[in-house]
């Protein structure tokens, strides 16, 4: 099926048998409605955000090989050190969609945003997005706007920071009632 008609489509990627539709964040709702109504993606499976701060700053040793396996006597099959390809903006927000029909087609609707850049809520399109978007706000700090109830969900209301961000310290949070606050 062709997704060329999706409003605000920036790029279509196919990898690992999965289709990713990258759209302009300003036209996210249009794209979501189009996919729901024209393509039948009535089931929102998941909303995931990822923080790419620091992505590509460190080299990683890439992985080479084929599905048939690698020759252990061949030197350097672990690949040469290289940097992963740069990302357009800091955060990616992915909506994993499913159509409940034979073949179970899935598509990833993805949009890229900077810190604080507003993203329209899709609760009106898929009501199940309610808690998913609250979680995205709570743990990743993506600025979801026009959500009917944008409050923290997993952490307390007075929590500072968004723990899944890459610049959030690991192991540095104060422990309550420990006398070290």
């Amino acid at each position: 099926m062709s997704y060329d008609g999706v409003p605000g489509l920036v790029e279509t990627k196919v990898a690992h048998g999965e289709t990713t539709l990258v759209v302009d964040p300003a036209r996210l709702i249009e794209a979501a409605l189009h996919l729901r109504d024209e393509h039948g993606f009535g089931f929102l499976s998941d909303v995931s955000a990822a923080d790419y701060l620091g992505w590509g700053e460190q080299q990683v040793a890439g992985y080479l090989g084929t599905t048939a396996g690698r020759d252990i006597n061949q030197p350097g099959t672990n690949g040469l050190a290289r940097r992963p390809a740069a990302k357009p903006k800091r955060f990616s927000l992915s909506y994993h969609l499913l159509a409940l029909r034979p073949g179970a087609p899935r598509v990833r609707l993805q949009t890229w945003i900077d810190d604080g850049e507003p993203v329209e809520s899709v609760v009106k399109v898929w009501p199940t997005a309610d808690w998913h978007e609250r979680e995205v706000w709570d743990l990743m700090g993506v600025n979801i706007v026009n959500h009917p109830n944008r409050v923290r969900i997993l952490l307390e209301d007075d929590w500072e920071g968004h723990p899944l961000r890459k610049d959030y310290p690991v192991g540095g949070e104060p422990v309550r009632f420990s006398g070290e606050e």
Partner: protein
Amino acid sequence: MATVERRTKPIYEGTRIPSPVPTILAVPERLRANDDIQQINFGPNHPSTHGVLRLVVDLDGELVVGLRAVIGYLHTGFEKTMEQKTWWKCITYPERIDYLAFQSNELVFVLAIEKLLAMEIPEKATWMRMCLLELNRIHSHLVWLGTACLELGAISMFWYTFRERDQILDLFEMVCGTRMHTRYFQAGGLAEDIPEGFYEEAWKLVAQMPKGVDQYEDMIDQNRIWLERTKGLGLLSAEDAIALGQSGPALRASGVDWDLRRDQPYLFYDRVYFDVCVRENGDVWDRYKVHMDEMRQSTRIVAQCLEQLQKLDDGAPWIADDRKVVLPPREELHTSMESLIHHFKIVTEGYRVPEGEVYVTIESARGEMGCYVVSDGGAKPWRVKFRAPSFVALQATATCMNDALIADMIAIAGSLDTVMGEVDR
């Protein structure tokens, strides 16, 4: 066996999902005007909340007129922790998210790694994975049945379901040495070969299980209290269920014929025979019935997996022969320098997974279990996100409990089959 009358009409017209917030049932204006609304906290430490769930309930007499679910009490930051560990060390974490259907969570993460690595898995490992997954589904449903009845006052069921549950846990112990959180699936296959004597014990369970399910149904299907506390309660229509992202038994009990095992086959689910259990009324009774039917179907699948496993040679490989990912066989470490190096590198540095992002979904005992993984090509995952079916199931509380009695809330919350560990992660 009691028969359920089939409906032809939709269970209710329109939608019952509250607006504007789909997960919060707000007290109607006319009721707010009189001073008779009582707000109570149901939980977080209530014995029937399956963990630590807090429901803020507004009551008009005994009637629920307002409801808000508060979660997060078990949040432990699994996803953040997993970013700090190498891929192979991460495998222990997903299991602990859902402590009833641990193997399906483990599998979904392992499948994501394997998808990024484009690995091929030996046949024996795939059949064994399916066998254990279905045993795990039965295990999860048994605990659900036992506790759901326990909460409604039928204590005896708990002892009966735990009899079979124990048999299943014995099988897990036999295979991997632990009864829960087995960490038996590895990227590439299984952690160990299938032990001797497993098939015999598993066949005993396959023979026992249908009798057990009949026995459970005999105990409560004609029970007047059970019928009155489950039939027609906690209604969820097919449209509402899909809009709220429900999956698994709750979706199928609402009349949606959808099961990822059949509709999006993974492992060898397209090579076995089983029926997808669907009911149409979308109430607590139907969810109970779907769970019962699924236990029978899972037993069928286990039997077919065992048959296939026993057809294979004794020496069939149970893990892929890929030395960049899989630990070399133990005995080789004494004779081969290369094996020793590989062992050392995998244990200290971990294996590397190619750059990319994947989203893998399977049908866990509770519904669509998803895992979104991003890799930068290094030895640690860049980002791991789980789509927990229980997390989504709890979003339906406001719809299901609309106009319910306070006493029925327990039955309804129980029927959604949530595990709080998975909700809060």
